[in-house]
């Protein structure tokens, strides 16, 4: 078993929690796992990516290379597009349809890619594009986008329902646990 998951978004969107949950699930189930994340400058609204590599063998390099991701979780559409070459032929893409315009687009210095949505559909074996932000807000916080996306992607991952609930209880701050469990389940239904 080898699963490579790329989590992409915009600095400040809270992509890190998703990878911590995945890492701990893998650890509990006896897999080896490596995560690689971005700290520092890009956290200020830049393009951010977390690599998650889970395997029943030893994981070497922490980075997923182009064409190697089984799953991409995208918190934003342009970031889904930017990282598309990393998706395996036939891989799954879960994308929150939110658009956050980067400054060059806002200033009119660069256009928004015309065929973005088409390209996402063409490349991915399975694309699930949905409004995870809206679901998160309905559950109580826009910060829950990460668990909504994880809920949606759970069908592609080898972890049991109980394991998911346990890791959320352990890794999410006390008073947000129930809200996050609910958001995860809403993601599963999405």
């Amino acid at each position, binding site marked *: 078993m080898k699963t490579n998951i790329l989590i992409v978004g*915009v*600095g*400040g969107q809270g992509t890190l929690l998703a*990878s*911590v949950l995945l*890492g*701990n699930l893998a*650890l509990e189930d006896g897999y*080896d*796992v*490596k*995560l*690689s*994340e*971005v*700290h*520092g*400058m*890009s*956290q*200020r*609204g*830049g*393009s951010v990516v977390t690599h998650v590599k889970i395997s029943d063998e030893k*994981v*070497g*390099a*922490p*980075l997923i*290379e*182009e*064409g190697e991701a089984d799953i991409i979780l995208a918190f934003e559409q*342009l*970031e889904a*597009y*930017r990282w*598309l*070459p990393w998706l395996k032929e036939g891989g799954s893409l879960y994308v929150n349809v939110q658009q*956050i*315009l*980067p*400054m*060059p*687009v*806002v*200033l*009119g*210095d*660069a*256009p*928004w*890619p*015309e065929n973005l949505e088409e*390209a996402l559909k063409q*490349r991915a074996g399975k694309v699930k594009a949905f409004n995870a*932000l809206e679901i998160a807000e309905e559950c109580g*916080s*826009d910060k829950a986008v990460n668990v909504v996306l994880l809920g949606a992607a759970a069908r592609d991952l080898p972890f049991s329902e109980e394991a998911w609930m346990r890791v959320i209880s352990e890794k999410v701050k006390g008073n947000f646990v129930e809200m996050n469990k609910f958001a995860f389940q809403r993601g599963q239904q999405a």
Partner: protein
Amino acid sequence: MSEKNRQIMLGNEAFARGAWEAGVTVVSSYPGTPSTEVTEAAAKYDEIHAEWAPNEKVGVETAMGASLGGARALSCMKHVGLNVAADPFYTAAYTGVNGGFVLLVADDNGCHSSQNEQDSRYHGRSAGVPILEPADAQECKDYIRLAYDISEKYDTVVLLRSNTRISHSRGIVELGERTEREIIPYEKNVNKYVAMPAMARKLHVAQEERLAQIAADSCEWDINDVQMGDESIGIITSGIAYQYAKDALPDVSFLKLGIVNPLPKALIRDFASNVGKLYVIEEGDPFIEEQIRSWGIPVTGGKDMFTIQGEYSANMIREAFGEDPAEHDVDVSDAPGRPPLLCAGCPHRGLFHVLSKKKTRVFGDIGCYTLSALPPTSSMDTTLCMGASIGMAHGFEWATGSKENTVAVLGDSTFLHSGITGLINMSYNGSKGTVIILDNRITGMTGHQQNPASGKNAKGEPAPAVDLKELCQACGVKHVVEVDPFELEEVERIVEEETSRDELSVIITKRPCAMIVKQPGIPMVVTDRCRNCRMCMKIGCPAIEIKDGRPIVVPERCVGCGLCARVCPFDAIESTGKEEK
């Protein structure tokens, strides 16, 4: 506290854990990506006194003092921080230690968050200390423990070298127990600790001897791991490069070095003689390769095959060994870049709006505010290294004979790090320039660490806060003005006044970082009074976008700071009056 004995840890957390297990009690560092989280994690252990020093030099001197006092001590920094700390480091490399002393330095291959890609291994070799280089989070923990044993056994500072990918990757780490250590009693020893010429000459000889001893001994250390496979190809590698090389070429023979200075020469010779073609794969400069070549050992491939630039990947190595590059049928080259931005509500935005409007020449510095060099404000002329804004403005003034519409701009942490000496110089050597200190009460860029102006220490406890105004006055600056950077008219008037004054002046913009104080949280809205002049777009706020040809405020991203309303000439932006979150 019950803790599981296997945990997922960030490389930097694993370093802190290892230091704690090794019995470290004193950590003194200055923040710098990618090293910062080591000290942050160390500060969470009750047994460790962890502190933010004002700069790396003070951090290393403090750790050195702690070592003399008999404790195990640690100082952490990013690669460019080692330049600042080079002075105490190079001579501590002569004197040696009492309690173990590890200097942890994290390089930034790929320049993720830095102004250069310098290779710290050269500093370690030039200073003459052992350098250990871990390749994953488990090794971060194991190697730092080992580094303390080496430090005490051989009486030397040990350089532990990490980089972005090691420090900021997480992996499974097997936890151990903490070994409490007795303080090693300090004994006065002028021949060892007073590096005057007569002593230093002898210390230099002793240093050379211990390095020779380590080069010999380390041939037996299991951190230098020989993995024989297909013997026609042998690869010498270390650190993160090992991971890429092993993924790319799993079947060939490897010598994975855990110590990269001094190199275990006999072991390398032996390995070289047991393989056909020898390759050296190391990120950064040809540090290992050139030494091996200098011993007359033929190297089939090194930097002639692999770049000195940026980060490596397994694919890159596969291709260098002749594999066809993977086919890419998706072209996303039209994806616009997403450069980082000042946050919504950032206090720096007000000042840079004014400087941009006035087309002021700005000698800039390093911090969040460096982002204002990018559009739309584009209001920075230079960025060199921490503190350089002041020295450069001073030199420029002497070269051109003019200080007209020119300022040096730097953050509070940067000013206290190394700007203050520049200001003393300006005052002493007759500058009439203007320095602007952005006092946001925190070291923002590296993730909000406390500094001597914050009023809190690294553990979050109350601490005295330096009064920047009084400090500048004490440096001999007669005109020191404080202003709220969001009072745009006032800022403009003061900048005008101070830059045209025929005397040295300092402007301190005072407003806390938007990430450390609660923002109003009531989003702004663009009303129908908007005439689409796009003045609000000039402040570069991440919450303002164009929709259907007009500016709008995106409520989820707006923190309600109201700067956009202040720049709007038509009073068209107002608060919605209702709290979002």
